[in-house]
């Protein structure tokens, strides 16, 4: 592109054109008209050339920084993959499908991922069962029922909820909600999947609330007005018109909340009890993929099969959240492009 632009600088006949080009950049190549070259301005042209070079250097610098996000994302994937590959080489693939994860067994280590994956999915689903109705309810209340003053107050409060560090939530899960859950369900200490689901629901709520509310607000008022004019009540309008119209945004918000729940580490590590067995119900103690990495990576010797296997778990985790986020992204993009 550079030689092309240089040619344009030379061809441009007046300062005005140069300015227009400076503003529009290279996308409007057809702006430059062939004209006589101003011979008296060679000094100025030299200066322009120099500053043109400087400008493109600056632009490249910012471009490199802009690319950083792509590089980091690919870097994370690449490093996880490179470190996990020995695990896939040393452990037969069929073994990953087993239920038992016992890498420190003195006789024969077993690297079954099934219990972990099932635990992660179970805790996540439990969280969504709580967070979807409540989050959607709050979003609908804020967008449709609440006075705007209430909305102005509640929105920052929901942001506070999002700002609480996960380790604090986990701590409260142990000291506050654990005993309550133990009492309700008559279990030992309340450190189980229910507790994890409950706390993850709290953590997923801000995402679901704010994004769902945005998409409910984005529904054109003509939709609601038409429904009301036909004699529908506000509730009917909300449930049968506005929510269906905002559904893509709502689903995207749920996917993002789900991604957050799958990847959350400290909270589940602290409150789910971390038993390695396959979960059979929500009152069982479970150990999710994230918790398993957090527990074992600190103790494992470097560059052993176990170490590589933990990175394989990390890789699977990364791919799971990547797919969930990608789906949310695709839905949101479609929704934004839709004509309203």
């Amino acid at each position, binding site marked *: 592109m550079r030689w092309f632009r240089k040619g344009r600088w030379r061809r441009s006949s007046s300062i005005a054109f140069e300015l227009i080009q400076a503003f529009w950049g290279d996308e409007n190549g057809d702006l430059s008209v062939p004209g006589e070259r101003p011979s008296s301005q060679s000094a100025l042209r030299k200066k322009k050339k120099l500053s043109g070079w400087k*400008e493109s250097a600056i632009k490249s610098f910012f471009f490199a920084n802009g690319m950083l996000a792509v590089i980091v994302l690919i870097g*994370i994937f690449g490093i996880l993959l490179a470190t996990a590959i020995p695990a896939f080489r040393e452990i037969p693939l069929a073994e990953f499908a087993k239920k038992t994860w016992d890498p420190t067994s003195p006789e024969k280590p077993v690297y079954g991922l099934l219990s972990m994956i099932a635990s992660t999915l179970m805790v996540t689903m439990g969280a969504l069962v709580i967070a979807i109705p409540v989050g959607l309810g709050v979003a609908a209340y804020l967008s449709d029922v609440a006075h705007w003053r209430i909305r102005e107050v509640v929105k920052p409060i929901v942001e506070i909820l999002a700002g609480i560090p996960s380790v604090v939530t986990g*701590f409260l899960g142990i000291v506050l909600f654990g005993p309550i859950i133990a009492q309700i369900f008559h279990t030992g200490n309340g450190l189980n999947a229910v507790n994890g689901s409950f706390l993850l629901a709290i953590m997923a709520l801000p995402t679901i609330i704010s994004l769902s509310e945005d998409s409910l607000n984005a529904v054109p008022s003509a939709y609601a007005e038409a429904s009301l004019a036909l004699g529908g009540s506000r*509730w009917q309008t909300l449930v049968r018109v506005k929510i269906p119209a905002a559904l893509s945004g709502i689903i995207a918000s749920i996917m993002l909340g789900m991604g957050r729940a799958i990847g959350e580490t400290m909270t589940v590590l602290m409150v789910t009890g971390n038993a390695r067995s396959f979960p059979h119900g929500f009152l069982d103690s479970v150990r999710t993929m994230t918790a398993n990495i957090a527990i074992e990576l600190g103790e494992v010797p470097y560059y052993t099969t176990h170490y590589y296997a933990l990175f394989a778990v990390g890789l699977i985790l990364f791919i799971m959240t990547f797919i969930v986020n990608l789906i949310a992204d695709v839905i949101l993009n479609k929704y934004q492009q839709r004509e309203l």
Partner: protein
Amino acid sequence: MKRKKIIQFIGFLFLRGCLYTVLAILLILLYDIGKNGGGAISWEFISQPPRRGMTEGGIFPAIMGTFIVTIVTAVLAIPLGMFAAIYLNEYAKQSRLTRLIRLSIRNLSGVPSIVYGLFGVILFVNILKFGTSILSAGLTLGLLTLPWTITSSEEALKTIPNSYREGALALGATKWQAIRTNVLPYAIPGMLTGTVLGLARAAGETAPILFTGAAFYLPFLPRSLSDQFMALPYHLYIMATQHHAIQQVRPLAYGTALVLIVLVLGMNMTAVVIRYRLRRKRRW
């Protein structure tokens, strides 16, 4: 007709109930921490290192550790986030590449924090040989906050009206001159406040520093960037689950939680208040 009204009444009642539930949960959370943590807070707790196997004393090294590591995070994340935002808002055109960059940023913000930890272990601790240190942990957290700093810096740049850029360009400034003199001076306060929000999140993170530098217990403050450090969130995790006398140290854990939450929410609110002020003050 009547039935419709009743259904609507019940429906709205349910929505209101959802809101009150969420508010109640938040209140309970904050109240419990405030009540139980308030009792543990004293000057000694803030200014002294832990003593007697962490059953007594304070959390001073943890506060300092979190403070220092957050500065390292800021040093990495603020400039990189700003530069990337400048590219995206000022230079980038609607192209496939730009879409790819934006997609990456959105996806990075969804990558689990423990995965950043794994990445940090390999890249900073092993490949670059920084060891488990403040530097490794700070850089890992810096990458973690990058999507936030980019997004919020771009938000700040977007608020600068186009006429500012056009004015400079019309007077003969080059693109970079226009950005430097007419965009950045007005955008930087907003960019910084947005970045503080990302830093607050980093300060509260535990999973990424578990294996990149946080230490169980250190009686001294770190002396260089290649030392390990104590951090508030990790300290709370230890006090809540790993300590040998968990019931005995509960008050200390509550105190740590309170300090952490005050720190993080304090940073959050400062940023939000400043941003609000900035918005109100400026009429374009």
